[in-house]
């Protein structure tokens, strides 16, 4: 009873929001429809601002960056509503999850500064994250050096990320080192946030969050080993803990691989069957993502409500918004349905 009372508002909110999610069949059928019909069908899907913008441009492609920002705003609006319904550690967990978009901005500034690009150019590439933005953008853009940026970040909630990034930068002085440190610190922080939740919520969130971490670890590992040729030990060090199927022992073994097919020898069956037949890192990523989405959908359908419902909704909404983004863009550019299906990841 207490839990029902605690989450009453959140449950209602997520239930209403969930109506905006399209089923796989609905989405597949959208790909074959003309753009004006798609827009009419999605008019009550929280996408009014985007649809209005598309009509203002007379169904022609929008200027670069405009549509990205519009879709992100829709997601942030949903996230804000959900976060408002929470308090304490739960609110902190969701806020931390959304702040990963801000990490993207940090990386954009770091890259821009390292390439000595102008402030205006860097600013144009930043993602507006109001009301979640906490970065002192102007100060960061006015910083004289990467070290200065990291010092500015030390005054923000990204202090620990900046501190470790800064230490790594002092050692190697390249942006890749900072970025890997930032990624690593972010997921370490996410695990810390998870530990602050109640045991019950931790257990319920673990399958979903564990899959996300597994996916992240496996993709990073493949890139580090096969694309960047890092050593097994170095690759392993850059991975994060908290995975569902890929524990430390398996990750150590996986780090020894020298080619992509070798991973099938070390992966547990649960993961092996998911990625069977994949020949590229991108395909593996899509397969793992599909599995996570499938699980998130099952959570949404589950009648007993928990915090995981809200988390699953945000995951699904983010995924679907990115697919709709690709769909709209494809339709505006007059791409074929096959090309659009490939772009939205519905070709398999």
């Amino acid at each position, binding site marked *: 009873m207490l839990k029902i009372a605690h989450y009453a508002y959140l449950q209602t909110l997520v239930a209403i929001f969930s109506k905006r999610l399209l089923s796989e069949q609905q989405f597949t059928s959208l790909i074959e429809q003309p753009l004006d019909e798609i827009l009419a069908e999605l008019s009550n899907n929280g996408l009014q601002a985007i649809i209005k913008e598309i009509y203002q441009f007379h169904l022609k492609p929008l200027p670069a960056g405009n549509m990205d920002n519009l879709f992100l705003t829709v997601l942030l609006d949903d996230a804000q509503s959900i976060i408002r319904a929470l308090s304490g550690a739960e609110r902190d967990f969701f806020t931390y999850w959304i702040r990963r978009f801000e990490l993207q901005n940090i990386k954009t500034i770091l890259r821009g500064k390292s390439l000595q690009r102008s402030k205006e150019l860097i600013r144009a590439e930043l993602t507006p994250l109001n009301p979640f933005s906490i970065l002192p953008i102007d100060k960061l853009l006015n910083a004289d050096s990467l070290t200065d940026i990291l010092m500015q970040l030390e005054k923000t909630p990204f202090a620990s990320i900046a501190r470790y990034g800064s*230490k790594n930068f002092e050692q*190697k002085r390249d942006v890749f*080192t900072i970025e890997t440190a930032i990624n690593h610190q972010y997921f370490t922080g996410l695990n810390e946030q998870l530990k602050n939740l109640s045991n019950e919520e931790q257990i319920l969130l673990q399958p979903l969050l564990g899959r996300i971490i597994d996916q992240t670890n496996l993709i990073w590992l493949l890139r580090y080993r096969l694309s960047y040729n*890092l050593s097994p030990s*170095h690759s392993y*060090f850059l991975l994060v803990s908290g995975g569902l199927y890929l524990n430390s022992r398996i990750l150590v073994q996986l780090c020894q691989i020298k080619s992509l097919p070798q991973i099938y020898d070390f992966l547990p069956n649960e993961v092996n069957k998911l990625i069977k037949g994949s020949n590229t890192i991108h395909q593996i990523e899509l397969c793992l993502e599909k599995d996570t989405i499938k699980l998130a959908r099952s959570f949404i359908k589950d009648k007993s409500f928990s915090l995981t419902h809200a988390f699953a909704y945000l995951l699904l909404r983010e995924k679907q918004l990115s697919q709709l983004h690709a769909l709209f863009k494809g339709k505006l550019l007059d791409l074929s349905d096959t090309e659009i299906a490939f772009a939205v990841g519905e070709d398999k």
Partner: protein
Amino acid sequence: MKLFHCENMQHISLLMRFDDAPLVSNLLAESGVFDPCGIASEKKHLPDQQGAAYRRIFDSALSDWDKITDYLALTPAATVNKVIAINKHQLLEIELRLSEIWALCAEHKENKRLLDIQLSSLQHLFSLLNQFKNIDIDLSVMKQTFSLLDVRLGIIPLTYVSRLKEALGIEGYYLSVYHQYGDNAHIVIAGVRKINEDILSLLDSASFQCLHIPEEFHEHPKTVYISLNEKKQQLLQQVDDLEQSWLILKEHYTAEIFRQGELLTLAKPYAILSEKMLRNGQLIQINGWIPDSKISLIQEKLEHDIANPIVVETRKPTPDEYAKTPSYLLRPQWIQPFLKLVTHYGTPGYREFDPSWFFSLSYILMFGIMFGDIGHGACIIGLSLLFKKGLKKQQRPEYFSFFLSIGASSVFFGFLYGSIFSYEHIIPGLWLSPMEHPMLMLKLALIWGASFIILLNIISIYNRLMSLQFKEALFNAKGVSGLLLYIAILWSIIDISQDQFSSLNVWSIMTPLVIIFIYQWIKGSGSAAERFLVSLFEAYDVIIANFSNTLSFLRVAAFALNHSALAIALLTLAAIAEGAGHWAVIIFGNMFILVLEGAIVAIQVLRLEYYEGFSRFFTADGYLFKPMELSPQKLKN
């Protein structure tokens, strides 16, 4: 002593033989009433080159003496025993001797500095050793390079420890944490040495900072600790020895330094005057300012102590010299703290009205009106009596009279209001309770403000007349016109309130206003349009400023009401509490009122005095009379 003016000053000019100049300088300084001033150079006069050399030697000797007294922590005497002249030769001997003593002190100081550095680096080694205390091997081993074994010491963030341990495991390395400090872990890693750099890139990613073992650490940590401790004991012994030698140095040279200080004090007046005097052959001329009443004192002193004749000429300052004439403010001791507040704003010019009496009395009066309470006033008096000795020790005895007078004023108005420690019904008020007659209080505050402003306008006119600015005195906004305008406005307001406003009121306002406007127009520069605008705004500003300045005095009543309101709030809170709580609220509440409100009232009164008062009449462009003195204590000044 003049109540509202500086003491009358005389310009004094002394013409003497060159040889007598040092002794005359000392006699002038001893008198404590001579403030030297420069002489406009004329062709027939030459600067005293010998005096310049004297000054250079004096400066060098003073610098050494200053450093020695600082280093040996000596407090010189206040006066000199006998006034004699110090010639250049004697001054050179003083400089030489002081430089010898300072060389000894400097050597001692340098030894102390080196010891401090050694102690500080030893302390650093101790803190480094603390990091290695859990390593149970000879530290020299850690410094060796082995062909097959790779051993490294370093620091990494604590959060990286477990993952790095696992990652190093892949490379066949072992990691152990031997010390933790804050968010960092001190680790030792060991493994089979490899030729590739995989380990290095991994350690870089883990923010591994290599630790270098100092040269001193060539044994087991415990043995190193013992040897460092022995070294520390030796250094501490040396510090003790040095402390002893400092005491011996002090004891040995104190008397001599005092004697040299006295001689330097006797050389100082001539060194100062040498910059300002002029020489013509064997004659020296010294000019300065001296209070009117002290001329005979100087003359008698010079006649008595100087064998050769000295030509002494005195005269009143000419109007051209008023701006350069120092202001000698001879005021009683109890006014000194108020005088400090006045001079903090600025020093009155020589012919300017000195507001220190007016300021002191109005400050005390307004403080009492705004903070009237027998208990609180008595507390201020009690505290000032309690800290009287402390204030004297800190050479701030004058502040005693400040607190005593404002405390007494608070007590006086406390009796008038019938208020004691926020209780308003224990003793009957001799006059009224502010809270019961708020409108009367506000009305009286406005009357007080208006009277205050009228009085200040009169002082402003007086100041302009004294400085011979007759047009400003008559036509300026702060002159007669401004005063008439202010009175006319007040008169009109009274007439309006009594429905008697007439054309006479309009004329009484417009006439001075137009005079001010025309005067500004004539005085102004620039194009006609600019002058018109400036004059218009000046006239507008006069009305607004007068209006706002008068209203500003409402705060006098407002704070009196505020004091009563705080008392009511305090008693209401106390009534809610019972027993000890009741008295705790009363005591802490009264302390709160005493400290916080007392400070606010003190600042508000000062604000009224400065901005509503001084800004109206006080040009404050004078400078204080600073006579030369013969005091070793003031040698550094």
